């Protein structure tokens, strides 16, 4: 499994309220929510993001509410992978459960800039910034987690196993 796309870059402590503001949570329709993803800190994100793009951020990404709508709206917006220095724990669990690949890599999060083209290889954990030529290593997912993400999340993965 690989991803390749343009980077949207954010800072530390990006909370779930700015990822998807609660005022839109009167629907569980993630495609609808994707239209408002990140709008309180980056009004242009939802309009400019393309399928396969990559989000890069600082520490404690996804802190705050347990709303699964946060990773789900990022995924529905087309983002192929989120790279951050660290993730808040509920977000980390939710992202994998819904099949959004996320990688912890402080070096990549520090170095990669907005607009850069980045390649990610989930089998090896290699993150390559094509603009600078630098390659970074994140902890790769074990095979079961790669299968879970490929299946689209925990529910789909479990139903295949039953």
């Amino acid at each position, binding site marked *: 499994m690989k991803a390749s796309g343009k980077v949207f870059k954010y800072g530390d*402590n990006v909370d779930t309220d700015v990822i998807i503001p609660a005022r839109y949570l*009167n629907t569980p329709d993630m495609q609808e929510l994707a239209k408002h993803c990140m709008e*309180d800190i980056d009004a242009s994100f939802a309009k400019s993001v393309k399928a396969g793009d990559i989000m890069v951020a600082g520490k404690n990404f996804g802190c705050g509410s*347990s709303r699964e709508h946060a990773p789900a709206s990022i995924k529905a917006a087309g983002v192929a992978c989120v790279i951050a220095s660290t993730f808040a724990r509920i977000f980390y669990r*939710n992202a994998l459960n819904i099949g959004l690949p996320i990688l912890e890599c402080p070096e990549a999060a520090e170095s990669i800039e907005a607009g850069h083209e980045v390649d990610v290889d989930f089998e090896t954990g290699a993150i390559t910034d094509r603009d600078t030529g630098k390659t970074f290593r994140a902890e790769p997912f074990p095979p079961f987690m790669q299968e879970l993400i490929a299946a689209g999340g925990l529910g789909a993965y479990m139903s295949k196993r039953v």
Partner: protein
Amino acid sequence: MGMTMTQKILAAHAGKDEVHAGELVMAKLDLVLGNDITTPVAIGEFPKFGRKTVFDREKIALVPDHFAPNKDIKAATQCATMRCFAKEQSIKNYFEVGHDCGVEHALLPEKGLVTAGDCIIGADSHTCTYGAVGAFSTGVGSTDMACGMATGETWFRVPGAIKVEVKGRFRPNVSGKDLILHLIGMIGVDGARYQSLEFAGEGIKSLTMDDRFTIANMAIEAGAKNGIFPVDEATLEYLKAHGAKEPVVYAADEDAVYERTVEIDLDGLEPTVAFPHLPENTRKIGDVGDIKIDQVVIGSCTNGRIGDMRIAAGIIKGKKVHPDVRCIVIPATQRVWLEAMKEGLLEIFAEAGCVVSTPTCGPCLGGYMGILAKGEKCVATTNRNFVGRMGHVESEIYLASPAVAAASAIAGRITAP
């Protein structure tokens, strides 16, 4: 090797004699919780887990509170989805608006649904509140909730812990909210990421149960997996009075391993305010400066209990809310509302010019019942002050105790009680 209180509860629910930090365990659940925002998503995921019925209809709690009473047609649809599922599955603990309902984390302890030694997940980040009664409880997403409803189990990574050693006694007008804001200010919004906050020390016995609920509630605001208090006489008395199940009392081992210890001297604490836009941006009340406010919210799962209502009413009694301030008081449950009415607190609020709402999470997460316009400032007893949390992205939330909120409502600016 010694275990923390959290580790002992997880070990017991995983059928193990011992667990250590970092270990992955599959644990049995005593309660699975959801609200009107998170449950509809979980209901969508539920069929994927291969079960037609929930694992135990008495061990699931569904609470319409976030956008309930329904704020619009879409919110009504989400509540209807949850209500319908509760009926189909004969869920015992579904709490309808008006029928003994309220904000989930104030409601469940009040209904005796959480007890010491329990292992609880909830699709709401403030599920960590029940650490106040000596339970392990943590927030999860909707998929985890669906898994929990279907199987009665889920996996956890056993957390390490920060020991919070509490000594002394609060001075007047200082409460649990000031303690937890002070702690978050010390360690930061990711200071306890992936860890437990385990409270200990002789100072705990002077904390009321309401103080402990407020403190455990905001453990997530330091990034913690859970916050937990040792069980003492006050806990047991509370559990008995609320008809909770028989408690199972766990205590941390003498040689439990902590990643670090943080000390808090209650005598030295002052009323504390968290400035926009992170709960870690704390200042002592004396360092706040002159901040004129437009709104005050007193309520939420953090500070909407009867003790909070009494503190606020005590300060507001006989005075008038500043003419430029809208003060919104939201008792967190139907029972709190009734008690506040019987004690004459609602009359005190109304006479002073506050508006008293039915229980709802409403404004805390920018749903309704007190949304802020561009540039407006609000003092709130709620738990988060992120950008746009209560309304416009250019509005500001200052987190504080019920005492500071009430005093500020009168003064029209942030002030000491």
